[in-house]
């Protein structure tokens, strides 16, 4: 394997690794504000950003596999997080033409809308598994924290993408 192929492999695996890392950060005891502030849902933002800007980067089987891994390491109902991520991806795919070329604030708003919709789906699924309606506010709180942190995740995403693009340009023959 040449160095070029290795670089290409790393670049291709980066979105999946980023999403997996996002899941692991959710499991690690970060405990923001002595445990009173929930950890932002990094994988949700990562799935959204790749669905908007690079649809090939995170294929559905990869999102499904990481979602199932998320469910298994959480110990909850299997398929819940996988369905949430895939529903978000599907929502963004259906609106991809509208989202192309929009300014970042509009994309942020789109994330808020899409995340709220899949949040409702998540809430309904968890309630179904619990056998009764669960309180909505813990979900709203964590989703709100994720939306608040989204600009930082997006900034890191664009920075990494620009670095990758520069690297490709530099190495182009």
């Amino acid at each position: 394997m040449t160095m070029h192929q290795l670089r290409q492999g790393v670049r291709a695996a980066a979105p999946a690794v980023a999403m997996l890392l996002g899941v692991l950060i959710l499991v690690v005891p970060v405990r923001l504000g002595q445990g009173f502030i929930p950890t932002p849902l990094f994988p949700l933002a990562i799935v959204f950003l790749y669905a908007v800007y690079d649809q090939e980067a995170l294929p559905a089987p990869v999102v499904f596999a990481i979602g199932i891994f998320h469910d298994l390491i959480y110990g909850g109902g299997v398929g819940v997080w996988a369905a949430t991520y895939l529903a978000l991806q599907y929502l963004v795919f259906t609106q991809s033409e509208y989202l192309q070329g929009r300014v970042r604030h509009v994309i942020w708003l789109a994330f808020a809308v899409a995340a709220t919709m899949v949040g409702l789906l998540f809430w309904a699924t968890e309630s179904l598994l619990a056998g009764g309606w669960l309180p909505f506010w813990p979900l709203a709180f964590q989703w709100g924290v994720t939306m608040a942190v989204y600009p930082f995740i997006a900034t890191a995403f664009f920075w990494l993408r620009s670095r990758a693009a520069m690297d490709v340009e530099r190495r182009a023959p």
Partner: protein
Amino acid sequence: MTVLGEIKRGGMKRHEQPRRFGVVFFLACSFFMVLFSLYGAQASVFEKARETVLDIFEPVLAIVGAPVRWVNEQVGDVQDYFRVHAQNKYLLEENAELLAWRDEAITLRRQLSYYEQVLETKLPEAATYVDAKVIGENGGPYDHALILSAGAGDGVQAGSAVVDNGGLLGHVVTAGRGASRILLITDYNSRVPVFIEDLELQALLAGQSGGSPVLEFFAEKLEQPPTPGARLVTSGAGGLLPRGIPVGEVASVDSGRVTVKPYANHRSPDLVRVVNFEFPQDLSAPPGPELGASIGEAGESAP
């Protein structure tokens, strides 16, 4: 209309069709698995998969969590530096109070020992303990669970109670070889049989996920409702958890809804203790030491 080699058909470009189809297909698979979970949440195939994932990712969690733990420790150290005076005052007061309690406990222990000898009381076998570190937690909005650094290889069994210095935290639901998962008493799936000491009444402590756990009573109408401050311990009903582990106290009673404030620190526990308890089958066994030894004493230690 052909645009740069792509054909638009019904608002969807041709190359988008397989991609969307793939998402829909896997979305359907996910919902199928959710339905399967609904009817077999603890199905052996899922449970085995959970144990395997825990075992494989236990070292990964330790590595990923190392920087987070380091930052938390540094932040804690800085906070301690600013609170050292207040903490010192609090600890001195607490120490004075504990000394008084110690004298009372020694007296009571002697009395108890005397009565046990007189009555020839047969005590159940003593519980054993496994100390473990918290290496992961469930960061979701509803499921409240922790991942521990000790598993079946260290003597942890599914169903065992888990305590911290304050009281009951939860019980083990998945025991992998080197790691285990515990369901906290605040999780909506958690139901713990408890005993209200003031009323001498049994009840179920039900997790709510969105706040403090509440009490569910077996009787439809209570002769006397519990009052705030009433102490709750595990009742031992069901034979899974040993009797007498401190759980919490009644925080409020509002139109029949009894909210409980747990003694255990379920928001940021670091070191916990798994209580392995054998429900007594043969009461002719010799008496052993009682429950409640503090963390670090007489227990196996997990890495």
